[in-house]
C-alpha cells in the first residue's frame, strides 16, 4: 500500500511510510510488517488539529498544547451495540431461568423466547466482537489464555459459556439455569470492562457502571419482549421486569453521573456536547418508556411505545457512554484533575 503525494506535480512522490528498496535492504525489524498506507497525518490529525496559540503552557492548569493524554478507544459502533445485545441476551437468559423456576407451563413460550434471544444474542455478540477486531481472523486468540485480570478475557469465557449453555438449553432445559447464571455475568461484565480503563469518566463511575449495565440489560430485555405478541401473563412478566430495569437504569445513570462529576472536568461529557445530548436523550426515552409501562390500562399501543422507547433508550445509553468516555479521554484535564484533586486533599 502506498500513497501518492503532490499528484499535480510533474514528479509526484509515492510513499509507503518506509520506502525501502527491497533489492538493497532487507526489512526484518520488529515492526517491519506493520501495515501502513503512507497516508499522511492520520494519527496526529485524529487527536487534534494545528495549534494556533503561542506555544506555552497555561501556568496554573497546564497541559501539553491541550493534546489528549490518553488514546481514546478505537472501538466503533459495534462495541456499544454489543453491550446492548450482550446485555439483552444475558438478561433474557436470566429471566428465562427465573421463569423456569416457577415451573409454570404458561411461561414455556416466553422461556423459549428467552433462550432464543439469548442464543441469537450470543451469536450476534460474537459477530460484533469479531467485526470490531483489528485482526478478525485471530478472534479465537481470546481463548488462548485465561487471564482473570482482564475483564475482556473473562468476558470471552463468559460469552463462550453463555453461548454454549444457551445452545444446550434447546436440548436440555436444565441447561437454562446455567445459561441464566452465565447470562447475568454476560449482562454485567461489560460494566466492569468499561470501568477497568484509564478513561477518567468510565473509571470514575466504576462503582455504578456494572449496575447501570445490569439495569440497562434488564431494560433492553423487557423492552424487546414488549415488541412481541404476548399474552397477558407474558406481558405482566416483561412489564414488571422492564419497569424495574428502567427505573433502576435511570437511578443508576443519575448516580453514575454524580460519581463522574465529583471532579467537574471528568463528568463534563455527561453534560455537554454530543455525548451529553445522547446521555440526556437516552434518559428521557427510558423515562418515557417507564411512564408507558406505568400508565394504567396497558394497551398494545402503549406496550409497543414502551418497547421502542426502552430499546432505543438503552441502546442510546450505551452509545452515550461510549461517546462520553471518548470525550473524556480526549480531554487531558479530565485525567489531570481527577488525579490532582485527590492529591490536593
Amino acid at each position, binding site marked *: 500500500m502506498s500513497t501518492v*503525494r*503532490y499528484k499535480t*506535480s*510533474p*514528479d509526484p*512522490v509515492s*510513499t509507503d*511510510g*518506509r*520506502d525501502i*528498496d527491497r*533489492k*538493497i535492504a532487507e526489512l526484518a525489524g520488529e515492526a517491519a510488517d506493520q501495515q501502513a498506507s*503512507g497516508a499522511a497525518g492520520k494519527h496526529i490529525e485524529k487527536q487534534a488539529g*494545528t*495549534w*494556533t*496559540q*503561542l*506555544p*506555552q503552557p497555561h501556568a496554573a492548569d497546564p497541559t501539553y498544547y491541550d493534546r489528549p493524554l490518553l488514546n481514546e478507544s478505537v472501538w466503533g459502533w459495534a462495541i456499544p451495540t454489543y453491550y446492548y445485545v450482550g446485555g439483552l441476551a444475558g438478561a433474557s437468559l436470566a429471566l428465562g431461568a427465573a421463569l423456569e423456576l416457577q415451573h409454570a407451563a404458561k411461561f414455556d413460550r416466553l422461556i423459549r423466547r428467552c433462550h432464543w434471544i439469548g442464543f441469537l444474542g450470543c451469536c450476534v455478540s460474537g459477530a460484533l466482537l469479531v467485526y470490531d477486531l483489528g485482526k478478525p481472523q485471530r478472534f479465537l486468540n481470546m481463548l488462548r489464555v485465561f487471564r482473570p485480570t482482564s475483564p475482556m478475557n473473562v468476558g470471552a469465557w463468559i460469552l463462550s459459556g453463555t453461548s454454549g449453555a444457551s445452545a444446550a438449553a434447546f436440548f436440555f432445559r436444565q441447561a437454562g439455569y446455567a445459561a441464566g447464571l452465565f447470562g447475568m455475568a454476560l449482562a454485567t461484565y461489560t460494566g466492569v470492562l468499561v470501568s477497568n480503563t484509564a478513561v477518567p469518566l468510565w473509571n470514575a463511575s466504576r462503582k455504578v457502571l456494572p449496575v447501570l449495565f445490569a439495569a440497562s440489560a434488564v431494560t433492553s430485555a423487557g423492552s424487546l419482549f414488549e415488541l412481541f405478541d404476548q399474552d397477558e401473563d407474558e406481558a405482566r412478566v416483561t412489564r414488571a421486569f422492564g419497569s424495574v430495569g428502567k427505573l433502576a437504569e435511570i437511578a443508576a445513570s443519575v448516580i453514575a453521573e454524580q460519581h463522574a462529576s465529583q471532579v467537574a472536568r471528568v463528568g463534563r461529557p455527561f453534560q455537554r456536547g454530543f455525548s451529553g445530548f445522547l446521555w440526556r436523550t437516552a434518559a428521557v426515552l427510558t423515562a418515557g418508556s417507564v411512564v408507558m409501562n406505568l400508565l394504567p390500562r396497558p394497551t398494545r399501543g402503549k406496550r409497543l411505545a414502551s418497547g421502542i422507547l426502552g430499546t432505543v433508550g438503552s441502546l442510546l445509553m450505551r452509545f452515550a457512554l461510549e461517546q462520553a468516555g471518548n470525550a473524556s479521554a480526549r480531554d487531558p484535564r479530565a485525567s489531570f484533575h481527577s488525579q490532582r484533586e485527590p492529591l490536593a486533599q
Partner: protein
Amino acid sequence: MGTSFGRGGATDFPGDIVNSDVIVIEGSNMAECHPVAFRWVMKARERGATLIHVDPRFTRTSAVSDIHVPIRAGSDIAFLGGIIRYIIENERYFKDYVVHYTNAPAIINKDFKDTEDLDGLFSGWQKDKGHYQTRTWMYEDVDPEPAGGERESEAAKKGQPIQRQPIQAEHTDLTLQHPRCVFQIVKRHYSRYTPEMVEETCGIPKQLFLKVAETLCRNSGRERTGVFIYAVGWTQHSVGVQYIRAAAIMQLLLGNMGRPGGGVIALRGHASIQGSTDIPTLYNLLPGYLPMPKAKHDKDLETYLKLNQSPSGWWGEYTKYFVSLMKAWYGPAATQQNDWCYNYLPTLTGDHSHMNTVVDMADGTVKGYFVMGENPVAGSMHGALQRKGLRQLDWLVVRDFQLTETADFWREAPEIERGEVKPQDIATEVFFFPAAAHTEKDGSFTNTQRLLQWHHKAIDPPGDARSELDFIFKLGRRLKRLYQYEYADPRNWPIRDLIWDYPTQGPLEEPDAEAVLHEINGYTVHDGKPVEGFTSLKEDGSTACGAWIYSGCYRGGVNMTARRKPHWEQNWVAPEWGWAWPHNRRILYNRASADPQGQPWSERKALVWWDEKKQQWTGHDVPDFIVERPPDYRPGKEARGKDTISGIDPFVMQSDGKGWIFVPTGLQDGPLPTHYEPQESVIQNPLYGQQCNPERMEWMRKDNPYHQPYNDPRFPYLITTYRLTEHHTAGGMSRWLSWLSELQPEMFCEVSPELAKECKLKNGGWATIRTMRGEIEARVLVTNRIPPLRIKGRIIHQIGLPYHWSSKGLIRGDAANELIGFVADPNVSIQESKAFTGMIEPGRKSKGRRHVTSGRLVKKLPGREQDRDLPQARHKPETSHGFKAMETKEGNV
C-alpha cells in the same frame, strides 16, 4: 583561522571540549546541527564548565546553556570587540602567553592608520582600484608571508612585490608599551567598543554583556581554558572571515590556543567538507593548500615558486610539495627540464568562485556544468539566478541519489509553475547519473577536526549507480581515448601524460580507492613504496605525493585512516583512531600548552612538554612542533626555512611562529576585525561612517537587486537563516526520507509574539516573506525564542527561516535561499545569508514571483539611496566578472 594561526582547520577536536572550563558557542547552533559533538559540551557542563550561547534565536543549544545572549544577526564583531576591550582594559589577558606566543609585541609600520582615524577605513585604500594596498599594515621594516591558502589572495590579485625576510627581534616591545606595537594598536582600535556601544549595536543588555565577559576572563590563565565554537552562522557574512579573526584574537589574548579545552573549533556541515578544502575542489588551490598559478604573475615555475616559497617557517619546503604533486600527476613526463610540467597547469585571472561561475553562466560564457552531490538551486543563494544560469548552459551533468531541484530545474521550479518559463524553451541538455552511497564504495572522509576516516564498501551499488570515483576515472579514460590522435597539440599534453592507471576491481571494474589514497600519501618514484610523511618528500623528483598535508596517512603501506582501535583502549586524544593531518596531530599548536621553558602551564592543563632527559617534546598528543627543538633554541640571522622556528614559536606554520593578533598581510579587508553592517541592515553603522565592509563582493546586476543599506521602509525586518537537527542543509539527504520528514514536515518561519501581533500572523497559519529577489510562503511558528531586540529605543524584529525546503521530495516547501542576493566575503567568497532584510505578511503567496523572470517586484524608492561606503570608497571598478560593476550610489535596479 589560517591567517591567525597558520592553518585553516579546527585547532582542537570536539572530544577535547570536556576539558574546557568555559565554552562559547557563537555563530553555531551546535546542539541542533552537531548533536553528537555536543555530547562533549554536555559532558564538560556536567564537569562544571559554563556554557554560553550567543545567537539571535533561543535554540536547542540555548536551552541547555547557562547563559543565552540574544544578539542582532550580523553584529558579532561589535560584541567580540567589546570583549577584547574588556580583556585589555581590565588587564585580564594571559600576559606570559601573549608576550611570547603572539605578535602583540610586534611594532607596526609607522604609516599605519586605524579605522579610528579614518572613520571605518584602514590606511591604504586605493580610490581608483577599489581595494586596499596593504603595505602600511606590515610590521615595521619587514614583510612576513601570509600562511597557507590565503597567500595568493593579496599578492596575486594586486600584484605587489613581496619582500622576504624573517621577522627580527628588535622590532618588538616585550613590555607592550610602544604606541605602535600590536597590543597598543588593538587597544586603541577597540577603545570605543564599550559595553554601552555593544548594547546599542547588538541589542545585548549591558549587565548580560559584562557577565559574559567576566565569565570568559575568569576561566582563562594557567589553570583554566575556554573554547570557542563557530559554524556557518559566522562564515556566511560579508565580513565572515573577520568574525573568526575576532574570536582568534580573543583566544590568543586569553591564552587559550594549543591547550586542552581551548582553541577555536569550526563545526562543518558536511561529512568531508574539510577534506574538500584540503584536497580542494576549489578553483584557487591545488591539493595541500598550494595556490593555483596566476596568469599575471606566475609566468614560469621559478617565479611561481619564488612568490610562494617562504624563507621562514614551514612553507620553506614549498618546492618539495609542489614537485611531488607534479610527479604524482604527470609521472615520468614531469622532469626538471620541463619545470616538472608546471606549464600544464591552467592559470587564474581573478576570482573564479561559485558565485562568479553562476553569473558567468547567466551571461552565457559557461557552456557545460558538472554538479556532483550538490544542489545549488536549493542550497545556494538566489535560486532564481542559479536557475537562470542553468537555463543558459549547453549541457549539465548532475550526479545524485535522486532527481534534485538542480537536475529538474527545467521541469519543476517557481518560474515554471507560474508559466514564466516553459520547459520546451530551455535548450540545456541534462544528464542525470545515479550516485553510489557511502556504503557502496571505499573511501575516506575528513571530518571537522581534520581526521581522516575510511569507510568500507558494504554492498555493490544498485543498477547504474556508480561512485564519483568510478565516474571520474572512466570519464578520464574516455577522454584519453578521444584525445589520443590529437597529442601533437601541446594543450593536450596534460591529458596525454596524466597518470591514470589505477587498478580496478570487482565485476563493475571500479577503481581501487586505496590505490588513490596511496598516491595521495605519496611514494618514492623508483619503487612505489609509500613515504612516511611530508618530511620525506624531495624536490628532486624522486618522490610523488598527491597532497603533502595528507602524507603519512598510508605510512608503511597501512591504511592509517582505517584504524579503529576502540576508544576504551587509548587516551582521550585517541591517536590510533583514523589519522589526522598534519602528522596525526589532534590539537594544533600544542607547543603553546607549555610555558616558554617547555613545562606545562599547569598540571591540570598539561598536554605536551619538553622532556629534558630525552631532549625531545612529548606528551598526550603528537607534538605539533619540531620534536627535537629545545625551548631555548633561537635562530641566527642566516637561518632559513624550518631553522627559523625558535623554541618558543608554537605557530609553526606562520613565518614568525606567532599567533597573529594583528594580521599584517593575507587579508584583504583589514588587519583587525572591525564592525561593519551587513549589506542589508536595519540600522546605520553606529561606530563608523563606513556602513559596510568596503572590500565586500557585490554583484551590481539587474537580476541581483539589493535593498537600501538600512532603514528600507519596504523591508523593515531582519531575516536570518538556519538549520534544524532533523534536516540536512538543502534537504537532498533528508527531505526524501520519511523518518526525518515527519519530524519537520513543512517550511516555516519563526516570529516573536510581538511581530505576529504587528503583522497579524497566526501560529500554524501561513505567511509570505518577500525580498527584492523573490517571495516565499511558510507556516508561522510564533515563539518567544526569537525575541525582538531593543536598540536605541527602537524595537528590532527578527525573522528566522530554516532553509531545508524546496520544490521536490517527500515534503516540499519554498526555499529560503530564493530570498537571498549575491553578496560575499572578499577573502573566501562565501555568501552572506545569515543577515538580510525583508518583509512578512499573513497569508499564502499570491504568485510566487521571481525578480529574475518577472521584473521588478517592488516600487523603486524616490530619491537617492543611502550610502554603504564613505565617499572615497564608493567607486567600485568593473572587473571581468561583472561584480562591483557600478558605483554603489547609483543604486542597482
